[in-house]
């Protein structure tokens, strides 16, 4: 830089050095610069450093938060994945149970239908047998009634006076004989 000042000064027709030909100006400029520099180093630099540190801390905090959020998200993802896995297993279990129930229900229905069919068949057989027995009983009753009527008629027609007296005499004899 000194060379630059000297060149500029030379070009302007100065003392040929980089520093101004008025040394006081140079001195005061240097002092003022030093003061400004000192003030900068004393006040400005710490503030800048503090601001940078704060910014760094903020960024680090944000990074930590982001990391935490990422971790949380990963954990949640893991949980969701696990839940999905559980849900799938549960769904499969439900489907399997439903299938078992369907199979059992089908078997029950078939068994019940077969039992009903057997019962209906047996009931029909019993009904037929009962109707047959009833028909036979009715027939026997009708024949017996006819036979009774015939017996009544035959007896009445054959009980003439002689027979009546004979019956009475026979009765008297049997009673007397003990």
């Amino acid at each position, binding site marked *: 830089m000194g060379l630059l000042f000297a060149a500029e000064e030379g070009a302007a027709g100065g003392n040929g050095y980089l520093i101004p030909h008025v040394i006081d100006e140079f001195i005061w400029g240097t002092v003022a610069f030093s003061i400004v520099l000192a003030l900068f180093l004393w006040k400005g630099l710490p503030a800048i450093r503090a601001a940078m540190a704060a910014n760094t801390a903020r960024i680090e905090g944000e990074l930590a938060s982001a990391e935490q959020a990422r971790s949380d998200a990963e954990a949640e993802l893991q949980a969701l994945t696990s839940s999905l896995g559980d849900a799938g297993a549960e769904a499969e279990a439900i489907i399997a149970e439903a299938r078992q129930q369907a199979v059992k229900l089908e078997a029950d229905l078939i068994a019940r239908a077969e039992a009903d069919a057997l019962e209906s068949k047996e009931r029909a057989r019993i009904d037929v047998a009962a109707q047959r027995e009833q028909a036979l009983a009715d027939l026997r009753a009708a024949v017996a009634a006819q036979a009774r009527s015939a017996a009544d008629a035959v007896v009445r027609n054959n009980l003439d006076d002689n027979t009546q007296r004979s019956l009475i005499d026979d009765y008297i004899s049997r*009673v007397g004989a003990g």
Partner: protein
Amino acid sequence: MSNTIDGYASALLSVLRAEGNSGADDEFLRFAQAVEANDELRSTLSDPRIPAATRQQIVEDLLGGKASDVTTAMVSLVVGAGHAADLPQIAKALVNNVAAAGGRALAEVRSAIELSDDQKARLAASLKQATGHDVDVRVTVDPSVLGGIVTTIGDTVIDGSVRSRLAQVKSHLG
């Protein structure tokens, strides 16, 4: 048996003793059986709307000349007192009393036809031989017997009727 029936039977037995029982108890029994068998006659003689004198006149018209005066008077007494419906029970109690008064048991005989006196006597003898007691035979003609005889002495029934034999045959026939 109710006090009314016993009372009338005892009273009528006294009448028979006083007037002499020449078959009046038998006539009384037969009339009572006729009343029992004839619904119209029984309802007429039992009808309280018909004056007692009218009912007694009916009795006298029916029995007049066919039964003894004692029998007619006894029936008229019962009917006039409004106990025509009790005639069968009173008659049975009366013949029981008559038999018991003579030291005999009453044999109620149901037959399809009337028994001759000889048959009655032989039946009484046979029943005495069977039961060990003298019996007073009272015959009722009952066509439902068909043939033979049914004799009831107290709680004992000796059934020799065709009806019972026929019933046995019917039971076998189902």
